[in-house]
């Protein structure tokens, strides 16, 4: 028993016979944002997909609130209080904004109870409830994506490169929302990112993933050197 909401131990995963992740171990505490940094192809999205149950691990253990959730079915992981915002194919473009948000919760009653939370965070999304999600701008789609995760009132969010393609002002807005989700709602976040400035502005800790293995980790504080970390993200 430890105070981690999510514990991963010696996780090995990949596709078919191709190994992508090797000996991955990490902990996330309640109300903590842990960012996983790494270049493209290092295994960041595979890590989230394995934790969510989309990819079966070769070995290792994943514990959520001390309950073994290794290789759990994705819908059961979601119902255990984990919201996943993937990097691609993230919305249902032909459904309305409202329907996309409704899909974030398991019942329409819960949706009605929680929609007010979104109104305070992203009022622009509430103004567009009847609009088709595919007609929103890129920034608004990211707002909807975050809103769908937050309306679930999860204990843990897996967020995959939410800052990608966003204007600086919108990136700042996303950072504000994540910090608010952590500090006011107590939500823990596993944030996969390549945008170093954004990641370090919100995270409590960082881990660097290179070729499927963690090569460095630490606490984000005044001494954290963005210049040093950016070397790991350079192409």
């Amino acid at each position, binding site marked *: 028993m430890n105070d981690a909401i999510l514990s991963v131990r010696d996780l090995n995963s990949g596709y078919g016979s191709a190994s992508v992740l090797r000996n991955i171990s990490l902990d996330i505490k309640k109300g903590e944002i842990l960012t996983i940094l790494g270049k493209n192809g290092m295994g960041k999205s595979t890590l989230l997909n394995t934790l969510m149950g*989309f990819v079966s691990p070769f070995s290792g253990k994943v514990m959520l609130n001390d309950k073994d959730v290794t290789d759990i079915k*994705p*819908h059961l992981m*979601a119902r255990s209080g984990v919201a996943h915002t993937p990097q691609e*194919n993230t919305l249902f473009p032909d459904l309305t904004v409202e329907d996309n948000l*409704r*899909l974030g919760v398991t019942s*329409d009653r819960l949706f009605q109870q929680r929609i007010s939370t979104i109104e305070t965070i992203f009022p622009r999304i509430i103004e567009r409830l009847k609009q088709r999600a595919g007609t929103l701008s890129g920034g608004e789609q990211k707002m909807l994506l975050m809103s769908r995760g937050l309306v*679930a009132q999860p204990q843990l969010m897996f967020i995959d490169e939410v800052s990608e393609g966003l204007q600086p002002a919108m990136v700042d807005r996303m950072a504000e929302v994540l910090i608010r989700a952590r500090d006011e709602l107590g939500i823990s976040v596993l944030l996969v990112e390549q945008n170093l400035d954004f990641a370090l502005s919100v995270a409590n800790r960082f881990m660097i993933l290179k070729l499927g293995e963690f090569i460095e980790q630490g606490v984000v504080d005044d001494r954290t050197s963005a210049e040093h970390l950016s070397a790991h993200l350079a192409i």
Partner: protein
Amino acid sequence: MGSVTFDVLTTAAILFVVSTGLMVILGVMKLLNFAHGAFLTTGGYVAYMAGLAGVSPWLSIPLASILGFLFGLVVERIVIRPLYQRPLDAILATWGLGIVISQVFALTFGRGVQFAPSPLSGTVDFLGVEYSAYRLAIAAIAILLAFALIGLLSLTRFGLNARAVIVNEDLARGLGIDSTKVRSLTFGLGAGLACAAGALITPLLSVDPNMGLPWLVNSFMLVLVSGVSFPSLLFASLVLGGTQVLVSTYVSPILGGMTIVVLAALILRLNPKGFSRA
């Protein structure tokens, strides 16, 4: 408005009713259900048996839909679910299932035709035309069914989940939707609709072990042309069914029998998306 106009409208209604079960399963499960014809036949025999038992012919339709739904749940669990990762094998399995069901009916009832009582008999004067009361009733039922299915998909939580699974099953699963349950209920719904359709059309025709086969072919063509959309299926039923009636009436019933297949092939040749906007 002459009787031919009513023939067009009621034929379209019958085709719509017969095809909905196939479209529901194809839309959500991406599965071409070759057992659809056998499910129609099952509904026909339910109507026949209900008639023998003295049950009201009207009750035979909901009875067939309930039995079909339960039968569909069992078939999905035993036959379809183990083959989710092998879609071609799943299609072949439904084909085999259709043959087995037909043979079971042949063994049980023989290969001869049987008749089910009609809930409505005779004609009524409607808009100045003496027309079959039961065919008009089927048209009304088709309209109600269309609204009910559109409402089910648009207004209910099950419909929202089903639409999510149709568009992006992995994303739906990541949001907590049990896509296995959605698939199971969908197959049950499709089978239930097919059985209800079989019970509905049997009083117009007769039932035999291969009764569903010609309907299966026409349903496939309509669903291919319409895509996964109930309004589009209604339109396709009207255009293709209407043309079939006109060719049968004014040219040749033999040519009329192949009209839907030929017209569907032509439409898909000219526009691969058919009547679908997707």
